[in-house]
């Protein structure tokens, strides 16, 4: 693994790490870590930073759903242009091109199930090339971005005599 990849892995795990902390971990000069991060931002490798929130711990009312989408491509058109249309909706949290029985997968959030239903029927289904959808509501989130939810990580170590 080269230094760039090592720096990126640390940042992916904890976006709040200071370049100095990463430099400490990897025994690299801080300047070098800063340069790697700046370059990765500039060339679009680092796309953004976000905070992983367990909304179930709050009073926020929301539902999320995973939607499978089947697409019939027009002549001269690729998946990218359909994906761009779908991805431009603010409700869309993530969007993937998939192998297997359908083509695109979208994760969306709305306030109510009706919001999601309206999004599917009025915004997704009407996009040119979309031939079918299947909506799956998410009932509980156990793990996201490598982090397990709702697990209390208390220190179980005990003090020994030696």
């Amino acid at each position: 693994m080269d230094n760039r990849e090592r720096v990126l892995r640390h940042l992916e795990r904890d976006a709040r790490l200071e370049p100095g902390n990463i430099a400490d971990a990897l025994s690299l000069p801080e300047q070098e870590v800063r340069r790697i991060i700046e370059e990765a931002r500039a060339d679009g490798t680092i796309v953004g930073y976000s905070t992983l929130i367990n909304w179930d711990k709050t009073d926020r009312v929301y539902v999320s759903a995973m939607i499978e989408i089947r697409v019939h491509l027009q002549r001269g058109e690729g998946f990218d242009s359909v994906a761009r249309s779908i991805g431009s909706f603010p409700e869309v949290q993530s969007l993937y091109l998939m192998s297997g029985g359908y083509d695109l997968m979208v994760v969306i959030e709305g306030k109510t199930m009706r919001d999601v239903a309206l999004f599917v029927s009025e915004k997704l289904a009407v996009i040119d090339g979309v031939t079918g959808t299947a909506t799956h509501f998410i009932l509980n989130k156990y793990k996201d971005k490598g982090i397990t939810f709702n697990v209390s990580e208390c220190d179980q170590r005990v003090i020994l005599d030696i």
Partner: protein
Amino acid sequence: MLNYNQILAPTPRDLKPSGIRKFFDLAGNVDGVITLSIGEPDFKTPWHIRQAGMETLQAGRTAYTSNAGLLPLREAISQYCHTRFGLEYDPVSQVVVTVGGSEGIDLAMRTVLQAGDEVLIPEPCFVCYSPLAQMAGAVPVALPTYEKDSFRLTPETLRTAITQKTKLLILSYPNNPTGAIMRKSDYEAIAQVLRGTDIVVIADEIYIELTYAEEPCVSFAQIEGMQERTFLVNGFSKAYAMTGWRMGYLCGPKELIRTALKIHQYCIMCAPSISQYAAVEALRNGQEDIDRMREEYNMRRKYLLRTFRELGIPCFEPLGAFYVFPNLSQFGMSSEEFCRRFLEEQQVAMVPGSAFGESGEGFARISYAYSLEHLKKAMNRLELFLRSLS
């Protein structure tokens, strides 16, 4: 009522209680304590290793293993010693799987010690060597090490301590509590003193995978001519965060291991089988886990060193284990008093250096087997405490 005092054998009865325990009895009475005192990894055993343990149970492999341990595990240990240090140990006759590194130390001592033998123990050190030597009837002799030497054992100190009765030398590097390591040249100088003697060495290298120098740490057994007199003790607790699995091993010349194995089989039978299968998985596929944890420790180590510098507390750079050992002598109180007041006034617990031998006086052991956030909180309190002193 029986007279228990008379019933008890004098040697174990009179063993000194651990200085760490004494201190923690104090800490137990203070609310909201931040501890910096635990000497085991804060990571969980990597999942694939835990899974290997579970699969062992599911498959019902719950019987005894051979006394020396599962052959595939001994082969993996032998392979590790070869690839990592260039050391050759025959898995059949030169490796015993033990219940943690601690059993390995005890076995090695009991294999060679008899009443009146002297055991040279560089201090400050892990607190088990001296009691185990006493239990084997031997006399522990402390060899002080100093901050000015980066807490390395010097050949001069060793030379002046050797007598006709010297049987055993303990080399415990990377060191708990100082974090000191011995470089190859340091070991060469020690080996030079030992050549021509019959002194046996226990090289307790349980922290050897956790070092932060550019060059990987050498094993004492790698030094020319030393393997024939060295018991190599290592294990899985620190490198793979497997403390509770109690998995260690002892390697050495077959003439010594044969006898060590007799003691092991009579008192332990064999190390736990479930842990042994998990240990095979650790050695085969655990290198990435070690690298990941080492990076994290290094981050914390450097943070602490930088913070001490900013606070004006001298601290030599420890290049191994997960402890720093700052010098607190400028504050005009004993290390025990410093730690006690810090605990009472700011509710942070660290271990006074004096718990690890007289030459630890003036220092404290801080473990960085804690998250960076936890350490930052503790260092903020240290800053407040120092301000209150001035």
